[in-house]
């Protein structure tokens, strides 16, 4: 039998049921993996050792009583953007360094309800703003994968949920929560060889999740298999009356949907996702993915999403605009860090200048600018109109196809220091992921192959709003066909 940290959630669930090992064994195996590897990877900002053991022992008690819920005893990493009662929640920012929430986010409360064990809080780009985890005030995260040719280069795990992705890839956790505002789950999943799920907007409650851009923030899971991702999403999802944008729709059995197959499905290939500067191996992998689906009985259809080219520009107006307002509450008055000043204005300026890093400050300034009198119509209002057109693109296309297949990111993981000279270069990482956030449609990144350097590449499946089931079915087929078995260099027991 392989070691405990290599198990999938499905395998661990069966093992716990069969009493092959205890939940405490499982949690201890992960805690010691964290102890061994986290100093290097920096995937966790906070490790909640004793709480995890308490939860594992409670899980064992439940298992002994014959009560096994969806996630009883399964150890997870929680992105440090989810407020966790009694456990410090930093959002990757200095401004929340001392903040210990007295409440539990709805999504993490759902996971706890289903018996999950929380190992700790995963590193992230500050306030989830970034594509490399380089903007975290708690230091960068190292991607556990290495280039074959250049094994010394320290690669980024992607972002913003970089800590979550690195933790699951390196076997420090069996799964993790993330949030995806413009690709923050799918891009790191692609960079780390994982399954990353961004469900429909409204599927997972945002209550208790530190807000970046309210209309674009989507909580979702990371896992090592599509089926594990389905199990995690099934637990995280559900209507929450505390979030007015949460959808009151039933949560279907996602795990069952993974086994549906793709026979008879129509899979769209959006022309606008092709470009001349796309690396050949990504283009090839994409074609390969379409062949797999065709071989499994799907029909491949060329489609058009004509407003795709405006996605990134639209996103980088809407997201900073909302962020500039959402982050106004970090003023040093009621919680978090404060720097006293000569007067009120000075207190605000010092607190925020010292509390926020450069990327957060940049986005607050962009957002403030696009909302200001005289610019609102030209930027924010226009972006909202284009957003509506992008949504219409998807609605039109989904009248003819069941799902779309695209690459997740325009490259494999890059090294720390690369793409750092120009924020626009970094923003381009989101080009394939952003449209699904603007439209609120579900999307999954699934590992499909390796590049020439041996680094993982993901393919993205995008579906109709609230039709995660089809997305899981298609992703599971890609997973099956790809037979992705490569492992990262840095991993527990590796």
């Amino acid at each position, binding site marked *: 039998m392989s070691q405990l940290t290599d198990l999938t959630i499905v395998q661990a669930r069966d093992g716990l049921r069969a009493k092959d090992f205890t939940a405490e064994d499982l949690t201890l195996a992960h805690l010691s993996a964290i102890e061994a590897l986290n100093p290097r990877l920096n995937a966790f900002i906070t490790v909640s050792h004793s709480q995890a053991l308490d939860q594992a022992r409670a899980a064992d008690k439940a298992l002994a009583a014959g009560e096994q819920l969806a996630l009883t005893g399964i150890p997870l990493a929680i992105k440090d953007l989810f407020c966790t009662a009694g456990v410090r929640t930093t959002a990757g920012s200095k401004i929340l360094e001392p903040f210990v929430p007295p409440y539990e986010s709805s999504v993490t409360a759902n996971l706890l309800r289903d018996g999950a064990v929380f190992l700790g809080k995963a590193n992230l780009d500050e306030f989830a703003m970034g594509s490399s985890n380089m903007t975290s005030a708690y230091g960068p995260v190292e991607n556990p994968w290495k280039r074959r040719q250049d094994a010394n280069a320290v690669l980024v795990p992607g972002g913003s949920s970089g800590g979550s992705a690195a933790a699951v890839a390196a076997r420090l956790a069996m799964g993790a929560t993330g949030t995806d505002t413009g690709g923050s789950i799918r891009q790191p999943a692609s960079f780390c060889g994982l399954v990353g799920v961004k469900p429909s907007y409204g599927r997972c409650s945002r209550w208790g999740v530190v*807000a970046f851009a309210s209309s674009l923030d989507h909580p979702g899971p990371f896992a090592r298999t599509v089926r594990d991702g389905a199990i995690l999403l099934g637990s995280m999802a559900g209507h929450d009356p505390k979030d007015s944008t949460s959808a009151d729709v039933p949560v279907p059995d996602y795990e069952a949907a993974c086994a549906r197959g793709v026979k008879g499905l129509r899979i769209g290939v959006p022309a606008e996702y092709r470009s001349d500067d796309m690396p050949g191996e990504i283009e090839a992998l994409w074609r390969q993915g379409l062949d797999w689906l065709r071989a499994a009985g799907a029909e491949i259809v060329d489609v058009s999403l004509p407003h795709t080219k405006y996605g990134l520009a639209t996103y980088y107006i809407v997201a900073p605009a909302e962020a500039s307002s959402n982050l106004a509450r970090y003023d040093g*008055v009621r919680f978090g860090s404060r720097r006293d000043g000569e007067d009120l204005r000075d207190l605000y300026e010092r607190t925020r200048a010292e509390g926020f890093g450069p990327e957060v400050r940049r986005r607050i300034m962009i957002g403030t600018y696009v*909302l200001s009198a005289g610019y*609102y119509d030209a930027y924010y209002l226009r972006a909202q109109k284009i957003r509506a057109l992008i949504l219409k693109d998807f609605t039109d296309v989904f009248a003819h196809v069941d799902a779309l297949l695209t690459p997740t990111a325009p490259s494999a993981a890059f090294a720390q220091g690369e793409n750092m000279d120009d924020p626009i270069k970094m923003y381009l990482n989101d080009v394939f992921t952003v449209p699904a956030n603007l439209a609120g449609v579900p999307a999954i990144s699934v590992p499909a192959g390796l590049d020439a350097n041996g680094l993982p590449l993901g393919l993205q499946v995008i579906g109709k709003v609230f039709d995660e089931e089809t997305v899981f079915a298609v992703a599971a087929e890609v997973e099956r066909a790809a037979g992705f078995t490569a492992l990262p260099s840095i991993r527990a027991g590796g």
Partner: protein
Amino acid sequence: MGYAIEGSTGTWEVVVGLEVHAQVISNAKLFSGSATAFGAEPNSQVSFVDAAFPGMLPVINRECVRQAVRTGLGLNAHINVVSHFDRKNYFYPDLPSGYQISQYEHPVVGAGVVEVQLADGSTKQIGVTRLHLEQDAGKSLHDQHPTKSFIDLNRAGVALMEIVSEPDIRSPEEAGAYVRKLRSILRYLGTCDGNMEEGSMRADVNVSVRKHGEPYRTRCEIKNVNSVRFVMLAVEAEAQRQIEVWESGGTVQQETRLFDSARGITRPMRSKEDAHDYRYFPDPDLLPLVLDEAWIEELRLALPELPDARQARFMREYGLTAYDAGVLIAEKETAAFFETVAKGRDAKIAANWVTGDFFAALNRTGGSIENPPVSAENLGKLLDLIADNTINGRIAKDVFEAMLGTGKDPASIVDEKGLRQVTDTSAIDAAVAKIVAANQDKVAEYKSGKDKLFGFFVGQTMKAMAGKGNPTLINEALKKALS
């Protein structure tokens, strides 16, 4: 010709529009479950949503929407089936999230109208532009510590209705009448307690002046005026100031001002450099507010009788003048008090007693209509004693005085003090005979044509009978004795 101010360059007209902020009566805040009671311990009614903790989200309180819609219906206004919430962004310590959730472009209530009555008996329609829901801010306390400011967030997030009028108001009197009428309507509806001292209703007063027939000139906004009287004084003071500016060759600058009630002037509140750019945008945490037409109709049908309807009914049912009815209906508690007194009795006499002796006693004792010095039931019984000739009107005043603050039944006071009216004609004849005998000189003068002396004889007779004589019978007896 209405209100006008004579300046050195001619006659000026005043143009006023009002933005009234009315705190919604509801148990919980607009977007959180925190309590809203006034006067609680500082920061004892604050949820994590109100304090804008990370990850907290607003959820609209249905009751606040219901109250806003009912108010809109009470103002004869259009109800918008779809409305939106926006964020108004600015930094201040008593605004925890750094933005106020308000309704900027799409308010829940559209155009309506309020009719006011003026002292000269005329009425005027004042247009209501819109009514929208928004959050109140907390309170900054700057006088509690030598170097620090304290913040009380109890009020943060409490629902306010901002009711914006058209610039239809043309005098301090109209401004006062509008605020009074609005307050009355809100109190009838039970959507705002109208308590201006506690700040649950306050007005921003927009004032400009112009020569007759001109388009509007620049206006100034006087913020947070907290009584009807101050609204009227502020209009007058600001109009005078602007006329002086224009007439001395200056230009009125659009700005925000405060009314200094101690000095009776307005002064600038913030300078232009501080002018806020509120960066309004739709709140992405809230979906559009969509109302069900059937629900609106339900609310419309369940509205209580409102001031205008009640005034009309009082005139029709009780035969009161517009003025008396207007006085009685201004406060719904007064109207209810009057109706209890008037029930089954002479309504005009009841109205005279309520607006006369009762109001005077209320003022004198500092009592309130909710806790009156004489109950409506007992005042009614007093009127019964007059009607059935147990006491006369003169004695009734004494009985009323004896009732004040005692809760005593008027009949028992009459019995205790032996104030029952004398209707025994032999006793009256005897008293009259005595007065006539003692004043033979006056009798002679009366008979020689000095008719006015009749009153003297009535007074003397009444006095001799300790005020208890039946006035009609005394008159008859005197006429007989003096003929």
